[in-house]
């Protein structure tokens, strides 16, 4: 804003900013496009005015009715703007901390007992409103009436004052004020950032020459914020060019902007040098250690930071044209899909859910990697395999459903099912008559001689075999030891002969 200009000059300047050449009103039209622009400018305040309406709706809520949420929102927005460009960036927690004294003061003014929990809730609610958490951070869609070719049309203006950006270090998301948010707060809604910057610096110079140091210190802080925003704006264009040259209009817009920015930066560096030298000169006339001297030092420091960020940006801009040429050479022949962007829900998920399972399976067999990104495959390692095999068996997973108590069958002797009780009696009677030691073949011959049934002989042979097992305590009537060959064949039995000790 230039205070030396007359209202007519100011109007002409505003027209330049507000109209595009083809927007100039036709004398026959009953709706001036300028009114639409005015309308859209006014609608930017809608997200903030909603806080007033919310306050009215909260009048009956105990403990919360005395809070002025618009004041809290403005404080939050200004704090975020002030912190822009400084490390670390503001996040929800730091903004909330900044709001607590304000909420505390509101509690005291309304004779309400201050409660940290309630203050926190209120602060969070205001932040949620600024970020439009209800709509997952999307811009507020504000309807308004427009006229196109004499016809009434309902249009929607997307407005976002504050947004969350990811932190490269993996910390909590950083709050950033959007251009609309910054302009709304810096009272320059109809001005471009570049012009707002020029206006602020003109103000600082005037304030300094008139000895209004406090105001000059405040304004120079504002100038630094605007310088940072200008840096970010231009860096964003260069970054977008590197990602996709087609996303930036390098035929008219970008060269014009770069040229303008170069001239602008050159002027700003000169202006900031002027301000710094004025401040230095003024400091010589004020008392050392006074409040004014401190304010002038702050101005000098801020001007130094502004110059530093501008010089950095100037270096980037000097490389910009080369960036464009190199990117053009690199990206020109790259294959680009001319597809319109798909809606993942309507164009991808719904057709898949509707499709037959076999088709979907076939789809995922080849395309699942597109949902997961790259993955370094594990290489087979013998060491890892061995250590895994030596690991104790993992505990079995618990049952997920209630399991009925298991019933166990009573232990039974399986032999009794094969041989009758009479066979057992015969075998036991035969064994009872034995004494001394004899070979198995002699033992079986004796059994045959006593006309034992084949089943009884078979049972006796089984008992001999079982006697080889030292842990089997069932047979304790004799011990068995091996003999060196010969082997024997007798009746239905054959094998190595053994010595039985009764």
């Amino acid at each position, binding site marked *: 804003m230039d205070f030396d200009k007359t209202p007519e000059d100011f109007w002409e300047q505003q027209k330049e900013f507000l109209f595009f050449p083809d927007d100039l009103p036709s004398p026959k039209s009953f709706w001036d496009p300028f009114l639409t622009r005015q309308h859209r400018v006014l609608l930017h305040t809608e997200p903030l005015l909603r806080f007033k309406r919310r306050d009215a709706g909260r009048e009956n809520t105990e403990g919360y009715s005395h809070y002025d949420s618009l004041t809290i929102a403005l404080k939050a927005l200004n704090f975020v703007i002030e912190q822009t460009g400084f490390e670390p960036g503001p996040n929800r927690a730091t903004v909330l901390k900044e709001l607590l004294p304000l909420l505390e003061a509101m509690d005291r003014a309304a004779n309400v007992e201050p409660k940290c929990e309630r203050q926190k809730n209120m602060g969070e609610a205001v932040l949620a409103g600024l970020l439009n958490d209800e709509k997952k951070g999307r811009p507020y869609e504000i309807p308004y009436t427009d006229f196109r070719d004499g016809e009434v049309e309902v249009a929607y203006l997307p407005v976002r004052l504050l947004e969350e950006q990811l932190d490269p270090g993996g910390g909590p998301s950083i709050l950033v004020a959007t251009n609309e948010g910054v302009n709304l707060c810096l009272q320059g809604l109809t001005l471009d950032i570049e012009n707002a910057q020029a206006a602020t610096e003109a103000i600082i110079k005037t304030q300094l020459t008139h000895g209004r140091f406090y105001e000059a210190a405040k304004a120079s802080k504002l100038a630094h914020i605007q310088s940072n925003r200008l840096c970010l704006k231009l860096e964003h264009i260069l970054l977008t060019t590197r990602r996709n040259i087609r996303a930036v209009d390098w035929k008219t817009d970008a060269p014009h902007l770069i040229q303008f920015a170069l001239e602008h930066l050159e002027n700003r560096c000169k202006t900031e040098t002027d301000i710094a030298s004025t401040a230095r000169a003024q400091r010589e006339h004020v008392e050392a250690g006074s409040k004014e001297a401190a304010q002038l030092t702050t101005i000098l420091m801020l001007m130094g930071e502004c110059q530093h960020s501008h010089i950095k940006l100037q270096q980037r801009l000097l490389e910009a044209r080369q960036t464009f040429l190199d990117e053009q050479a690199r990206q020109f022949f790259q294959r680009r*899909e001319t597809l319109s962007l798909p809606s993942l829900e309507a164009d991808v998920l719904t057709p898949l859910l509707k499709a037959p399972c076999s088709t979907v399976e076939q789809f995922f067999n080849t395309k699942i990697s597109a949902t997961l990104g790259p993955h370094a495959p594990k290489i087979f390692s013998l060491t890892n395999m061995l250590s895994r095999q030596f690991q104790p068996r993992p505990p079995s997973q618990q049952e997920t459903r209630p399991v009925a108590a298991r019933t166990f069958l009573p232990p039974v002797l399986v032999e009794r099912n094969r041989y009758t009780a009479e066979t057992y009696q015969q075998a036991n009677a035969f064994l009872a008559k034995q004494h001394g030691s004899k070979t198995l073949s002699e033992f079986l011959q004796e059994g045959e001689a006593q006309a034992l049934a084949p089943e009884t002989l078979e049972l006796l042979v089984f008992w001999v075999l079982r006697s080889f097992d030292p842990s089997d305590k069932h047979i304790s009537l004799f011990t068995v030891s091996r003999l060196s060959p010969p082997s024997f064949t007798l009746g239905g039995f054959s094998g190595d002969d053994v010595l039985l000790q009764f």
Partner: protein
Amino acid sequence: MYELAEVRAAIRLVEWSLHPLARPANTPAYRELIARYTSSFAFRDLVHAAAEEWGLQVLDVSSFGIAVAPAETSVFAMTANDYRPSGTADDHLLDGLILIAIQATVYPLAQDLLEDPTVAHHAITAEEVDQTLRSICDHLEQRAQKEPDIPLASVEQRLHAAYLVYKARPQNRTGKNGKPVSSSTIAMIERALKVLQSQGCFLPKRQGKTQSYQPTWRFQIQVQDWSATELYLAIKTILTQPTKEA
């Protein structure tokens, strides 16, 4: 001719893309390579060439790191078996649907894909992803009921539709220990979000008792610059092919 040190540095930067949890802000060596990439065009070409040889496509390089996408035949492309080594055919089918539903929950509208990938999206929960899937399933079921006369081939196709498999799976059955059964859809979504977390695509957030997952820059770049279009093109191709059922 490139110097050997330059080639090695380019390969090292590509290698960083396979460490999804590493961040340049916390790793000076990684940060130095990113700075070299943004300042030298020759180095950038070298990085792209090295990535291409590994079957990878460089999506973006910024202060957040390097993000790459694997070609379908690349050794770095995950398969359904890598994701779930054992499981039924239904499990594999549901896994795929869930992974796409996660993307659709973060980006429900086409214009969302145009957003700046550094803007933080709201954290999502397993319940929200399940809700995305179940609401589409309900909608498809209602639409099927309203179409009484359809050809026999379509009836068969409808009987085997994927949404029926999802609908039939319980949402949140809990076991004796009070935890969700691993075959319930909520547990399967939780698993998918945890796998994506290990891939550097989500950061866990806990608000009270609710466990939510915040999409990272890597996930946003992956979906916006590659996955959404890749999946859409594949679906267009596969749905125009004659199916076995048809």
